[in-house]
Every structure is written in structure tokens, then in C-alpha cells.
């Protein structure tokens, strides 16, 4: 494994499989235990450096680090010296001077973790940067697929929605194809990035046409906060053409699963009846996130610091 986890491309097939296997072992080692804590990272300090709002990712990383007995410092840009104009570099160097071993960073600017990795000695884990990547989300999605379907090789995954703004989609495309899955992205043409032709995916525009051959449907959140232009005529039209409702879910093969990275816009990209159905893995994904992040922190921090 490399020292940092900045994008899904940092992991080759062996590394990614090692993360998933490690997560599975950690999960089974902790299952049913009264003391859900391991002493592995005692004395290590993990800083959660969050420049952007987050519920599940920050809590999940915090819980993962604490379950491995690391000390955790949560830093959010709001209410810190960042509001006095301190730069990312100075903030990071300050944290490192106080003895942090790893920085988990979420930033609104794509590429911020890459810059950070060049400035600090410790490991940097990308917890989502702008519209670029969110590698641990892709790892937990891969873990969830493997858990539900028993395999990843040859699994047909359809990623639907706002691919343009989605770091989840980007990371999943790269990681899932590394792991042998066959990925299709479906979106309105306005919500596909310019370079999509060079991705290892098939591009489609008609959701109904691809659903009968899908093992996994991954719905993306429509990211209102990143939309500075009109990408589709109306929410209702988007929902009609690209939303997953009960009727569309019925077109899926019997054992297909429905995923969503959260937070959901119920009624927009996913109907409530679909989100709450037995096919939905949305709650599993959140639970698996802790195991997968424990595996990542263990593999990055557990060994030698060189």
C-alpha cells in the first residue's frame, strides 16, 4: 500500500482486496463483542480535517479511529482560525507540529488532499475533495456489494445520476473496474463530465434500458449545492427520467441491490418505497463504512512510519 489514500487509483487490485479482506476480518473479530475496541493504534493521533459539512463520513472515521484506540481530533473549518484566513498549508503544518500521524481531509476544492500530501510527513486520507474523489466511500460500496452478492468480478453495476459533480461516482468507477466489475453510467448528457469517454465505463442515457441487466444500481444524490447552472429543466422531469421508483425497481433482476451513498433526496433520485425496501443496502453501507475505514487506518498507520 502507498502511504496515502488520495484516490481510488492509488489501490491496485491486490491492495483493494487486502482492504476488503481486512475489513471483513475486523468485522467478524468485533461481532458480538462487549468491548468493541482494539488496541492496534494506541498512541497514534488521527486528525479529521473537515472543510465541508459531513455527517456520516466524519462520524464514521471518528468511530473507526476510536475503535482502533487512536486519539482523534476533530477539526472543522467553521469556528477555527480558517475563518481568520489561515491557509490549508499552515493549518496542516500546525496540526502536524502538535503530533498528528494521519490527516483525514474533506475539502471543497478538488485536489486539496494531493497538495496536503506534499506538505506533511504523516499519511493523508481523502475523505472527499470537491467533485474529484471519495475513495473510502468506493471501498465501502465495493465491500457492501461483495457482502450481498458474494463477488465483485463480473458484477454489472449501473451508476445513475449526477456523475458530473459526484466524487462518489468517480471513485467507484475506478475502484469497481479495478476489482473486475462492469460499470455503466446513466445520466442526462448535461450531468456527464467532459472526459467520460476515457473512463472504463459504458455510457447510457436511458435508465429503463439498462435496469433488467443490472446486479447493482447505485443512485447518486442530485447535488443542488454544486449546481451553478440549469442542468435539467425541472426536478420533476429529472425524477421522471432518472429517478428510481417502485415501477423501475420491479424491472430489476431478483437478487439485484439498490445503493445510495447518502444523504438521500427522497422523492427526487430515489423513491421512499425503494429506499426502505429489502433490496436497499443504504443502512448496511453506513455500518460497513466503519469496518472499511478501520481497515484503511490499520493498513496505513499500523506498520512502520517510513
Amino acid at each position, binding site marked *: *500500500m502507498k502511504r496515502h489514500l488520495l484516490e481510488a487509483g492509488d489501490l491496485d487490485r491486490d491492495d483493494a482486496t*487486502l482492504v476488503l*479482506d*481486512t475489513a471483513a*476480518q*475486523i468485522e*467478524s*473479530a468485533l461481532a458480538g*463483542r462487549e*468491548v468493541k*475496541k*482494539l*488496541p*492496534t493504534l494506541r498512541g497514534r493521533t488521527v486528525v479529521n480535517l473537515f472543510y465541508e459539512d459531513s455527517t456520516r463520513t466524519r462520524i464514521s472515521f471518528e468511530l473507526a479511529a476510536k475503535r*482502533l484506540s487512536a486519539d482523534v481530533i476533530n477539526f472543522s473549518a467553521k469556528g477555527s482560525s480558517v475563518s481568520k484566513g489561515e491557509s490549508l498549508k499552515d493549518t496542516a503544518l500546525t496540526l502536524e507540529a502538535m503530533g498528528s500521524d494521519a490527516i483525514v481531509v474533506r475539502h471543497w476544492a478538488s485536489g486539496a488532499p494531493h497538495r496536503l500530501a506534499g506538505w506533511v510527513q504523516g499519511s493523508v486520507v481523502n475523505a472527499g475533495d470537491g467533485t474529484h474523489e471519495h475513495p473510502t466511500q468506493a471501498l465501502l460500496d465495493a465491500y457492501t456489494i461483495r457482502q450481498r452478492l458474494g463477488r465483485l468480478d463480473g458484477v454489472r453495476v449501473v451508476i445513475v445520476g449526477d456523475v458530473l459533480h459526484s466524487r462518489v461516482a468517480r471513485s467507484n468507477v475506478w475502484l469497481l473496474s479495478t476489482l473486475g466489475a462492469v460499470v455503466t453510467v446513466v445520466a442526462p448528457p448535461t450531468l456527464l463530465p467532459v472526459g467520460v469517454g476515457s473512463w472504463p465505463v459504458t455510457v447510457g442515457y436511458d435508465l429503463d434500458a439498462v435496469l433488467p441487466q443490472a446486479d447493482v444500481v447505485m443512485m447518486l444524490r442530485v447535488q443542488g449545492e454544486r449546481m451553478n447552472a440549469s442542468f435539467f429543466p425541472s426536478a420533476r422531469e429529472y425524477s421522471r427520467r432518472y429517478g428510481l421508483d417502485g415501477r423501475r425497481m420491479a424491472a430489476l433482476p431478483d437478487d439485484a441491490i439498490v445503493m445510495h451513498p447518502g444523504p438521500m433526496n427522497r422523492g427526487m433520485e430515489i423513491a421512499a418505497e425503494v429506499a426502505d425496501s429489502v433490496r436497499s443496502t443504504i443502512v448496511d453501507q453506513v455500518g460497513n463504512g466503519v469496518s472499511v475505514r478501520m481497515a484503511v487506518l*490499520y*493498513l496505513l498507520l*499500523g*506498520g*512502520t*512510519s517510513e
Partner: protein
Amino acid sequence: MTESSELSAPPAPPLLSSDDVARVIDRVAHQLIERAASSAGAGATDGGLADLVLVGIPTRGAPLARRLAARIEAFSGTRVDVGTVDITLYRDDLRLRGVRALEDTRLPESGIDGRLVVLVDDVLFSGRSVRAALDALRDLGRPRAVQLAVLVDRGHRELPIRADYVGKNVPTSRSQKVEVHLAEIDGLDEVLLTGGDQ
């Protein structure tokens, strides 16, 4: 003779051959049965064996624990519970030796609370693996007592830990290596002593 013939000298015979390993496991199995019987409370009908859990430390402690259980069942007719506990996440040398893949942790469904746990490992050396296993057990439950069974005790302890059941005591120098091969993992049973200035 020239020096080259010394280099190609045949390897030393194994410390324990395949037959020796089987004999040693049988002996330890008998000792476990005897000790369980003598420590069992009044009224125990099964020779105290129902209380016993054999917990192997991966990699090679795991198959050893299963073999011991099979031999105990053959000698006494009582089935004993077997488990494994991976100690990787409890090691104190992760920073020195780097991360490694994890192995299974599996305990019998009835748990280990109030029972006699016998840890099983292949080689007892510094005692650090056993310490890590004791830490792991503490998080998994509260056994009545914990004992230790090893195939080979090679000395050089770094912690105040000793084995309750020893297959073979082997005086070694620190520079030597004790290699345990088991059929389940390596294709055949043998114990080799290599390296050092013999």
C-alpha cells in the same frame, strides 16, 4: 575434501519428524485430559472436558488446536470446543514489522466466559504472541483460567510467561530459527532447527 562439499552438506535431520509430531500431540492430549479430570469440580460427569476450550493462535496454532481436540475426542470420547484468536491487532511490534493481513478469530458459540481456555501455539519464544493473545482474550470474555500448550519451547523469554504443556523443549541460540511445518498448511509435519553456528 574442499570447502564446496561443506556448503552442499546434507541438511540436518529434523528436530521432530512427522511421527514425532503425532506422538507429541497424543501426549499433550493425554495430559490435557488428566489435568481436566483432576481440576474438575465434584459432580462433573465428563471429566471436566466440557469446560475446556482449545484456542489456537494463527497461523499454525489453529490446526494444532483442531488436532489436539480430535485426539482428545479419540481418547476420551468427549468432544471439546475449538476456536482461533487472531492476535495481529494486539501485537506490540506492528511498528517494527509492518502491517500484515489478518486471520480468522472464531470462538465457540457458547463463548469462553467461566471456562478453561487453553491457548495453543506452535513455538514459544519471546512470549510476546502469548501476551497479545491474553490481551485479545480479555476483550472476548472472562475465562475461569487460561493455560498454554505449545509444540516447541525454544527458550529466550522476554516476558514472565511459561507453558503448561510443552511438546518438546529445545535449547536454541537466538540466531537460530525453529521452523514448524504442519500438513494442513505446509503439506507435511516436521520441526526444523536452522541457521546459527551449529
